[in-house]
């Protein structure tokens, strides 16, 4: 049973809108991650956090930003959505080795 939750599951939004993708976990994990996933492509790490007030950019350049004010919460924000942001966004958390993933948010920007 997943203890990491992402909302919304699906989002269709117009260009230029500000959006926040929510990710929360109840396992007390210090490490949290955001991945971007496109069909047939590997998962690309866009942000990660090793604890409260710790955030870093990942391997793939992204125009999104993240915050980590509480251990359980790791939201991702796009200030001005563009069609190029259309993708699936996966949140994960980890205590040591191996990740627990949320169900993902599929974002479509029109």
């Amino acid at each position: 049973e997943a203890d990491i939750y992402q909302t919304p599951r699906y989002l269709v939004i117009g260009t230029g809108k500000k959006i926040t993708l929510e990710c929360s976990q109840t396992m007390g994990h210090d490490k949290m991650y955001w991945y971007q996933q496109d069909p047939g492509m590997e998962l690309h790490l866009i942000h990660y956090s090793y604890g409260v007030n710790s955030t870093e950019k990942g391997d793939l350049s992204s125009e999104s930003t993240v915050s980590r004010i509480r251990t359980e919460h790791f939201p991702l924000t796009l200030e001005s959505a563009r069609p190029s942001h259309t993708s699936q966004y996966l949140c994960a958390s980890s205590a040591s080795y191996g990740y627990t993933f949320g169900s993902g948010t599929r974002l479509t920007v029109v």
Partner: protein
Amino acid sequence: AQSVTQPDIHITVSEGASLELRCNYSYGATPYLFWYVQSPGQGLQLLLKYFSGDTLVQGIKGFEAEFKRSQSSFNLRKPSVHWSDAAEYFCAVGPLYRYNNNDMRFGAGTRLTVKP
């Protein structure tokens, strides 16, 4: 640099047939290896992992994988595939020791289709 290669983008097998999904890695030492499965519209679920010891590891849903150091491989197998196994399968390697934390790198995935 650490990397993971899944040579097969898409595999189709008949229900009841055996399955093997390939994973090759590049890593400077003995890696930690993982297989995840992703059903349509879902996140990734851990199937099994290898850290050390017995090179044949058992996972959930009847899957197993074998670590072969000489071939830098960690192939996933199942003796008899069920229609519910149709999904995307991801191999991952770690730790990457980014800032002394134990992150992972994922392959591009293999999509499994199961024929009736």
